[in-house]
């Protein structure tokens, strides 16, 4: 099965800057995690997003678009990135999700209903 992992981060939290001495270690954790997904045959795709402050939302009502500055829901946690993975069942997907090198985050695990293949 395929699962999408939505990474929710507290919007108030500062991201580690590349100039920070801790940045190298932080990135190494994520590189190792990505490699684990690739080696295990789980990797489909994934990305880290710019903070929600950079989001623009198109709201369409009766075919009329309004452009809004901001994400589609104002919440304390915002989508910070995602992984799309292959896992044999929910237990494996949950185990992979909880192996992420976060200290604080919410990770929503959702099965993919349909994904067109190229």
């Amino acid at each position, binding site marked *: *099965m395929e*699962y999408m992992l939505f990474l929710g981060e507290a919007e108030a939290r500062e991201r580690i800057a590349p100039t920070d001495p801790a940045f190298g270690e932080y990135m190494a954790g994520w590189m190792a995690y990505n490699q684990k997904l690739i080696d295990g045959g789980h990797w489909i795709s994934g990305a880290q997003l710019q903070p929600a402050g950079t989001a623009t939302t198109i709201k369409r009502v009766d075919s009329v678009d309004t452009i809004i500055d901001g994400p589609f829901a104002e919440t304390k946690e915002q989508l910070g990135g995602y992984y799309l993975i292959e*896992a*044999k*069942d*929910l*237990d494996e*997907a*949950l185990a992979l999700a909880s192996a992420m090198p976060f200290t604080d985050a919410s990770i929503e695990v*959702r*099965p993919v*209903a349909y994904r067109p293949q190229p």
Partner: protein
Amino acid sequence: MTADAVERRQAITRLAREESGHVLALLAHRFGDLDLADESVQDALLAAASWDEIPANPAGWLYTVAHNRGIDRLRRAAAERRRHQSAAYLLSLPDEEVSEMIVEHSDVGDEQLRLVLLCCHPALDRDAQIALTLRLVGGLSTPEIAAAFLIPEATLAQRIVRAKRKIRDAGIPLSIPHSLDERVDAVLTVLYLIYNEGYLSRSSAGGRVDLVDEAIRLTSALASLLPNNAEVLGLLALELYGRARAAARFASDELILLDDQDRTRWDSAGIEHANRVLASALALEVAGPFQLQAWIASQHANARTAANTDWPAIVSAYAQLSLLTPSPVITLNRAVAVSMADGSHAGLALLDTITGLDDYHLYWATRGELLTRTGDPDAAADAFRRARALATNPAEQKHLDRRIAAL
């Protein structure tokens, strides 16, 4: 109804309660589809209604009929070419030699454990876990469960449908996980909640399924699947002590407190049984909160009179319990024990340290009792009134009314 018909109906109920969980577990594994297995078992139970006589091996009969119904469903679905990718594969298997012995086979244990773990999977919310466990493992019907929890049948039916849909669509597996202990803890919590619902609403049990008996039945089954899990045995002992004291806990729909219960009405054979189960739990030497609670229950159950209770021992058991699972409710219970061991003032002092129980009727009821004993009737009456406003169980309400009137 003729005597034969009554007997047949009882046999069908027994079959549903005692065997349908095993058969469902086996078929869910064989078909790889929980929903199909459940529908097939329900079909077979309906077919049992037209028995002319009770088969020699009802469990074997249920397996055979449910299995065949499942295959029929798969055939129809395959014909319509819209359901179950697995249909073609399953239909291509040679016809199974259905042995009468199949449901008594030793592998059934693993299948049953997978099923109960699935029903209590952390990806399902607590209410769904409880409903699925009673329905799929316990073999209760949806109307029976709805009546036992006093919720509308449609609400419960929808809860079960939603949970089964999530199991299918989110890919929740029928498997035995690496972190078995953690997952067993979730099962124990579900069984404890079923027990507790029965324990507290027992007074209004007229004709309802007895949730205490169901919890004991399911916990015993789990204990035979996991004979070396001390906490499973601890929970079973706790439930058995509760049931053994049941007859003395209520009089004409009013709650009787432990101190005032007629101990000759306790079921001594039931207490002996609970003692044996607790001893086998403690012999495994793995401490846990259910064993501690059972041990506390054993101190009460084995004291011949309320005055004989070893309160200091109970105080120290609650202290250990607080360390394992800190919670304000445990502190509340500890305060009661402290008041018995060291006096009402000491109990009240501990009660004063509790926060977060303002909406819990037993906090106010306890406060009222202790204030009564320390000679402060006005404050006691206030506390009992707050408790009365929060209590939902009719027997507890009556009891509180009587306490207020007595002041």
